[in-house]
């Protein structure tokens, strides 16, 4: 009995150390990727763009996760903050010649303020009412970007073309490879900050509000201020993701940020696993992957097995989603954790 109690924390410690060194190793490998591949063309620039997009979506999913997973507020409109971040970056670069690095804090600040202000009145709305209000935001923003009097800034439906920055210091990297590194570094910083936030006193307050708002306020937590601030931080994350998206994609238009984007981010958060940081990464990969390949894969599947009926483009997407939610109600991250735990138990037993 004594042996077990002493062994357990040690095992947990080892496993945590193992996870940490694995994570660092993985990140180093990811960072080394463009240098290893170099200009050999073994991995195309287009693939680097797709990898970057996955990371960008992971940041966005993380932002929504902070709000929904850790604070219990549902948003169907985070695509709107993504758009605000993207347009902030695009307008600053295009019209004011601002360095792309500086657009990130600018987008973060603007999105935080917008998110906070939107969060204030939205506090009176609980659950599905909040979801509906944010949904309205997601529908309104693309229209607002087309507004006639904003056109000198936003360039209306035509959108804004940007040029991708080249690698600095004469690094032997293409623009896409360099931006992949930038996105990776920003993402690591953002995840690190999110982890620290969640492990802090305010982080525990956030979770307490999610679990039982009334109990939290009885304990002296200013729930409304917390909720609005978390809304702002969540918008900040999504805004930074939007700004990065604008820079690596070299193009923004109202069409890039239709309300489907908000839904995609939410789906990514749920599929990856709410209230989970690794879940956000998986969610980001899911958003990028499924959006691009569901259509093509449906077509290929139809041809491959000679289905007698014509499958609609998004059929596979729907089926995947239903199966995932039934098989892994805690998202992919939750599902993997459960699987891992079961494996260990069966080994130990």
């Amino acid at each position, binding site marked *: 009995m004594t042996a077990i109690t002493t062994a357990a924390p040690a095992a947990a410690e080892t496993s945590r150390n193992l996870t940490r060194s694995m994570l660092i190793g993985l990140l180093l490998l990811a960072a080394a990727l463009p240098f290893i591949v170099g200009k050999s063309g073994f991995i*195309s*620039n*287009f*693939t680097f*763009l797709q990898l970057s997009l996955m990371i960008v979506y992971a940041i966005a999913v993380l932002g929504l996760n902070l709000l929904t997973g850790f604070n219990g507020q549902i948003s169907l409109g985070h695509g709107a903050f993504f758009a605000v971040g993207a347009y902030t970056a695009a307008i600053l670069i295009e019209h004011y010649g601002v360095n792309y690095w500086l657009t990130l804090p600018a987008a973060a600040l603007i999105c935080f303020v917008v998110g906070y202000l939107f969060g204030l009145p939205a506090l009176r709305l609980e659950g599905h009412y909040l979801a509906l209000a944010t949904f309205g935001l997601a529908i309104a923003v693309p229209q607002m970007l087309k507004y006639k009097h904003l056109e000198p800034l936003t360039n209306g*439906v*035509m*959108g804004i*073309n940007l*040029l991708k920055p080249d690698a600095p210091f004469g690094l032997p990297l293409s623009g896409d490879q360099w931006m992949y590194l930038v996105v990776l570094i920003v993402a690591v910083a953002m995840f690190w900050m999110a982890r620290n936030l969640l492990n802090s006193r305010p982080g525990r307050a956030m979770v307490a509000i999610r679990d039982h708002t009334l109990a939290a306020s009885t304990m002296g937590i200013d729930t409304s201020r917390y909720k609005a601030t978390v809304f702002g931080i969540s918008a900040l994350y999504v805004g930074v993701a939007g700004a990065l998206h604008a820079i690596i*994609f*070299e*193009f*923004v*238009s109202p*069409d*890039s940020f239709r309300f489907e984007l908000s839904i995609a981010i939410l789906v990514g958060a749920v599929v990856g696993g709410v209230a989970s940081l690794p879940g956000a990464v998986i969610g980001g990969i899911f958003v990028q992957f499924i959006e691009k390949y569901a*259509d093509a894969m449906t077509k290929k599947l139809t041809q491959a097995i000679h289905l007698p009926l014509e499958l609609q*483009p998004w059929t596979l997407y729907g089926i995947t989603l239903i199966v995932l939610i039934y098989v892994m109600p805690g998202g992919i991250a939750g599902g993997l954790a459960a699987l891992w735990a079961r494996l260990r138990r069966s080994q130990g037993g």
Partner: protein
Amino acid sequence: MTELKRRTVIAGLGILAVTPVFAPAIAQKRYDDGASDTEIKIGNIMPYSGNASAYGVIGRTSEAVMKMVNDAGGLNGRKITFITYDDGYSPPKAVEMVRKLVEEDKVLLVFNPLGTPSNTAIQRYLNQRKVPQLFVATGASKWGNPRQFPWTMGWQPDYVTEGSIYAKHILATKPDAKIGVLMQNDDYGKDYFNGFKQGLGAANERRIVQLSTYEVTDPTVDSQMIQLKNSGADVFFNITTPKFAAQAIKKAAEIAWKPVHYLNNVSSSFGSVLKPAGIDNAQGIIVALYRKDASDPQWVNSPDVVAWKAFMAKYMPNSDVRDDGHNFGFSVAHTLLQTLRQAGDNLTRENVMKEAANIRAFESPLLLPGIKVNTSPTDFYPIQSVQLARVKGESFELFGSVLSSESTS
């Protein structure tokens, strides 16, 4: 150090000595990405899904034309690989698909991408990477700007040219005209209207007694039509897309307004405009055409129409032959084939662009007699001529001669 230098010099001399022997042989064939001794890769994006998916037949037709060429042995001994993706008429999707074409599929050029918004979105990228954006499927006037965008070229007559041709016809036939204009309030409408004003000239701009506009989101143009009638205009220039064109024609008949009616080429379709508006109401409307209506009996023996019909029967047997996209795709694909034929074995992007700007009096199939494709290093508007036609019964009756505008050459 000296040793090293001497060795370098010797090696250098060796290379120099060898080079001239092989250089002439190599110079014959030159390739960029997407071209080789056996293959030419062409990229394309089209709205196969979404609101504008009706245009998708253009991409399918181009694809089928390339298949026809391959079945006949290819082009200059090379097979053509035609890669076409769906952009859903969405600019961000267009950007992504074009990047995939250039960076992953490594196509030689991007051919006939459709729509002003999508082409605007990809123009800067393609020009930066020096990849030809050839024969875009939009009539906006901005595609012929080789100084700023040397890798982008239009194809069909641009809206400015067409607008000025209507204006000149009005001045020639009805110098005291009182003109009413109905215009869609966007880049397309403004392009036509600017050309129209150019054609009239500053002195005659006062002939325009009424300009009414509508938004593409408006349900009808009824009130604008009443406004136009009340202005006393006796000539009507109708700058509208198919749905609104049909409404305008119908409304004019209802309120018994009978001006000389000029309709832009964008809406010169029996299927989607003139029939829904009522053939009787559409009689006498003047449009500018540059291609043959392949179902018109007057062209039944014309070799290009015969060839088109054979092509349709063999390569697109299940398609609707009345859909004009098949005519458009067939014709524009042949202009690309001509460009590649001219480029011969020098299939670099630079040379393809050079040959695209060096087309002399090429009769792309299905163009009206007398209308030819002409380009030069300063003229990136391949087709600049139209012929006016009047709606008569259920077909177009061509009249006058082929008209060109020098305003944009």
